[in-house]
């Protein structure tokens, strides 16, 4: 379940619909401070079902919706779609026949959220089920946020255990 592409719209600083293709084995994302690089990591975490606003550097979940800039007003919807390459046979039995699987998450200003798999509405549980056990989803050790690499070494030995349990 490699990531083929990521589409963002109204998510954090990505106000306009933006599509990022990830066709390569090693992709580097670059740009000046504050331009939106780490927001791409947040978009992937959010699309995979992240429930804690704090893990997305926000206070409330509505902090992921574009809240305006010098010239633009705030948006009322944040939407992220992650399209996975499903040809490695790792995915959930329900989706074995699809070459691609896409998960979409939306959040409206009024707080309602929507989840979709291959454009069909579903529940959050369906999204987490999709990734459970297949090794296809984000494990705690597959996304390392900015500034947190040193924590693996400086945390207490009990805290480090979680990574091993996740891999077991």
């Amino acid at each position, binding site marked *: *379940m*490699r*990531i083929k592409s990521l589409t963002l719209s109204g998510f*954090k*600083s*990505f*106000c*306009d619909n*933006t*599509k*990022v293709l*990830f*066709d*390569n*084995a*090693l*992709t*580097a*994302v*670059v*740009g*000046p401070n*504050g*331009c*939106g*690089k*780490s*927001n*791409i*990591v947040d978009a992937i975490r959010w699309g995979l079902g992240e429930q804690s606003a704090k893990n997305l550097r926000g206070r409330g979940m509505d902090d992921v919706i574009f809240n305006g*800039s*010098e*010239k*633009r007003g705030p948006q009322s919807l944040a939407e992220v779609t992650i399209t996975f390459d499903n040809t490695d046979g*790792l995915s959930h039995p329900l989706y074995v026949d699809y070459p691609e699987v896409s998960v979409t998450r939306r959040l409206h200003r009024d707080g309602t959220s929507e989840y979709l798999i291959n454009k069909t509405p579903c529940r959050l549980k369906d999204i987490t089920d999709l990734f459970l056990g297949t*090794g296809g*989803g*984000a*494990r705690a*050790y*597959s*996304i*390392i946020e*900015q*500034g947190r*690499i*040193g924590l*693996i*070494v*400086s945390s207490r*030995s*009990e*805290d*480090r*255990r979680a*990574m*091993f*349990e996740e*891999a*077991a």
Partner: protein
Amino acid sequence: SRKKFKEAFSVINEKFQEIFPRLFKGGQARLQLSDPDNLLETGVDIIAQPPGKKLGNIELMSGGEKALTAVSLLFAIFLYRPSPFCLLDEVDAPLDEANVGRFVDLVQEMTSRSQFIVITHSKVTMEGADALYGVTMQEPGVSKLISVKLVDNTANTRTPEHATQ
């Protein structure tokens, strides 16, 4: 379950012992259970010895050494149970140029098992990538994606299929 944890721990420990000296160009390191009799709750200790130094408390290691040790452990876990993709946000920031070079070499090797997306300010890492995305805020406050510069890595047979956006 206890058995699974024990198996994961011992394989990851083996891999960690292989990767650490490659990233540090020498030295040795290993993992140790802090309470081996209680597999359900035991923590995991890291014993690391950079080349030429005495085995010591890992807290005394430098910022760069800690980051490199963390990357060694991370990749050791990946080799035991790879995840299809891996996102690394500026993990190369504390590293000096020589260590960034070794880090990129290892990431390139890992790409046979997983897809890597790395955010970086380092030119060495940029040069090692198959594709480069620039993020810009030409319009202040609004992020846009700019050109995909395909890195001509003739040495690297991994030519990406299609690069048009």
